[in-house]
């Protein structure tokens, strides 16, 4: 899966790194609603709908407005509670990333102060592109003779174990577009393309869990991380778990999002369908299994996955991995019996409407991990319920490091 999808994400309420120009501070009680940055290539977004009227009171997390970009459509959630005081961008307006879309404020803030803030912000705002801010580039490292691509965010964060994001079967580092920026506000983050995926080398060896876990261990060596917080989705969750069992000293914590590896059952329609699909129509039906709301699968998402599947070597890699790990709707590697050895702090997040891996697999970790089930989400809660997932993961990591949450 690549980055074209509709999701929900908080408006950048003041966080980095969306603003390039001189920034006007919002006065006390005022929250600015900015155009979020979803994914590396996004420079602007179009406001396609307002979901809240001016003067309406909203809770933190409430959906405020809809945004359409080249790759993604999504609802933007409120970063705070308050009253929507101004819709700065009307429906149809195209706003650069970081640009002002609206203003939220406490009812006690006078209108004049809100308007003064809007005027001052607009006068000084410089869009990212015009400010010449370089995009975070992806890099490659050699691991065991294979090229692995990764995206490093916030390399200047104070020392501490970095977060490493591991996508699922057929995915790539762009699957974390709603996650990586948020986590990078407080820590260094690497999003990795596993072997056979994204722009990493397409040689997957035997295509089994040990091979992937070894590659991730080699990646940690290559980026000089003795230890890392591993966040893995689906197959990436199983890879993280396998590494934590084999080398607990390398793993500071585990966040497993709808992980494989905890039970035998897996939806063969997804795995086999993903491998077999050659045309857009077939693939669309398969990708719809990833979400509770199949309407989230737009043409861009399907096209991006097709582009990946058409790279030389990808079909062979996917078939090898599917054959080694998920033949005939069964997982060959179930780690449930080894969980007694699991010694690292673990958070499990599952979508209640997962159609690829049943949420009941989380029972295998009962008593050993914190388990959170997001009722409305499907197999990809980090995309479908990004705000909830970011809060859970951020809170979990903050607690571990004893930082104020």
């Amino acid at each position, binding site marked *: 899966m690549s980055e074209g999808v509709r999701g929900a994400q908080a408006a950048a309420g003041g966080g980095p790194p969306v603003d390039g120009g001189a920034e006007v501070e919002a006065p006390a009680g005022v929250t600015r609603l900015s155009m979020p940055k979803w994914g590396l*290539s996004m420079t602007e977004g179009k406001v396609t709908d307002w979901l809240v009227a001016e003067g309406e009171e909203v809770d933190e997390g409430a959906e405020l407005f809809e945004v359409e970009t080249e790759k993604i459509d999504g609802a933007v959630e409120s970063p705070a509670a308050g009253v929507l005081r101004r819709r700065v961008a009307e429906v149809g307006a195209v706003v650069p990333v970081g640009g002002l879309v609206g203003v939220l404020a406490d009812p006690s803030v006078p209108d004049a102060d809100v308007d003064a803030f809007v005027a001052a912000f607009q006068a000084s705002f410089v869009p990212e592109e015009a400010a010449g801010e370089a*995009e975070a580039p*992806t890099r490659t490292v050699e691991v065991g003779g294979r090229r692995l691509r990764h995206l490093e965010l916030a390399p200047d964060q104070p020392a501490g174990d970095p977060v490493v994001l591991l996508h699922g079967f057929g995915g790539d580092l762009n699957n974390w577009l709603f996650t990586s920026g948020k986590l990078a506000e407080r820590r260094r983050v690497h999003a990795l393309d596993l072997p056979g995926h994204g*722009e990493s080398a397409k040689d997957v060896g035997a295509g089994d869990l040990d091979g992937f876990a070894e590659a991730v261990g080699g990646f940690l060596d290559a980026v000089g991380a003795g230890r890392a917080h591993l966040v893995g989705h689906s197959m990436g969750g199983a890879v993280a778990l396998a590494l934590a069992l084999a080398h607990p000293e390398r793993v500071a914590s585990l966040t497993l999002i709808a992980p494989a590896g905890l039970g035998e059952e897996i939806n063969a329609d997804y795995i086999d369908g993903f491998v077999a699909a050659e*045309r*857009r129509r077939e693939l669309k039906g398969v990708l719809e299994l990833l979400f509770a709301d199949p309407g989230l699968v737009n*043409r861009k998402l399907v096209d991006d996955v097709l*582009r990946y599947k*058409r790279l*030389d070597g990808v079909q062979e890699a996917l078939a090898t991995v599917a054959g080694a790990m998920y033949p005939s709707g069964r997982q060959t590697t179930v780690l449930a019996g080894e969980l007694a050895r699991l010694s690292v702090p673990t958070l499990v997040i599952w979508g209640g409407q997962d159609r690829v891996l049943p949420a009941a697999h989380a029972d295998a970790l009962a008593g050993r991990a914190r388990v959170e089930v997001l009722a409305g989400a499907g197999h990809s809660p980090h995309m479908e319920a990004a705000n909830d997932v970011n809060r859970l993961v951020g809170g979990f990591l903050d607690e571990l490091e004893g930082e104020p949450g």
Partner: protein
Amino acid sequence: MARVITFQKAVNEALDQEMARDPSVVVFGEDVAGGQGAGGELDAWGGVLGVTKGLYHKHPGRVLDTPISESAFIGAAVGAACSGLRPVAELMFVDFMGVCFDQIFNQGAKLRYMFGGKARVPMVIRTMWGAGIRAASQHSQSLYSIFTHVPGLKVAVPSTPYDAKGLLISAIRDDDPVIFFENKVLYTVEGEVPEESYTIPFGEANVAREGDDVSIVAIGRMVGMAQQAAEELAADGVECEILDLRTTSPLDEDSLYETVEKTGRLVVVDEDNPRCGMAADVAALVAQNCFDDLQAPVRMVTAPHTPPPFTGSLEDLYVPSAAKIADAVRRTTGGKVGARA
């Protein structure tokens, strides 16, 4: 971020990667090496516009300059393809193709059929097409329809650097003869192209823009022109869907009917002359298969039925423009949507 390269570089990279992957791939044509065997060899041009630059030294003995004798080297390509190589012949301008029609129409296109599948002709002919560089009537035509007309040939007309690389790799790996059309104005256009090799299947159109009001079917350089028109129309509230056919043979009829069913209105844009061309073919297919979905007559935006003029001002008028496309779209809506005050 994906890497950005020009259309021209994308073609070069496809050739380079396929030559590296498969030793049976050879490249020949007029000046594709550029000064082979001459004093200027080290600084070889790589074709009249430099598309094959660098290949001669990277793949020794497999990039060959030919005499200026199209019927000879296209015939050689057919023969080489029948006997085990995968030749990629470059016939500089499609306008010169006439002298080797027998090799293409009666030999290349027919051998697999006439030998009951026992012969195959995995040949690619790359050629430049289109007006816009002040090169006059004999270097500016858009003759893909002539080849689309002949069963046994496949025809690709890419519109972007991404499509150029993927379609050319598919063409080289295909066991049938493919005529590969490169628009000379598009050579300098840039776009995101993966460094790795990849294929795009023939017969799969690309929805270059989604919209609900009017479908615009286009090909090659006209896809970008349609996009400009769609931007202008969107400002007026008319949402166009743009279908880039990518290959005219095979043709993705399913996607064509799907978009017309969705919008009920069709404008076909073609840089070629109007008679018996791609635009007329698409219009006829839609009339035959989706008549009940149409809410307005199909409109064709094409060059006029004249040779491409040399005079700059006339050439600019000759090629369909964004303004002409937008005008045709407005006419299909009858001014009901987004007509300007």
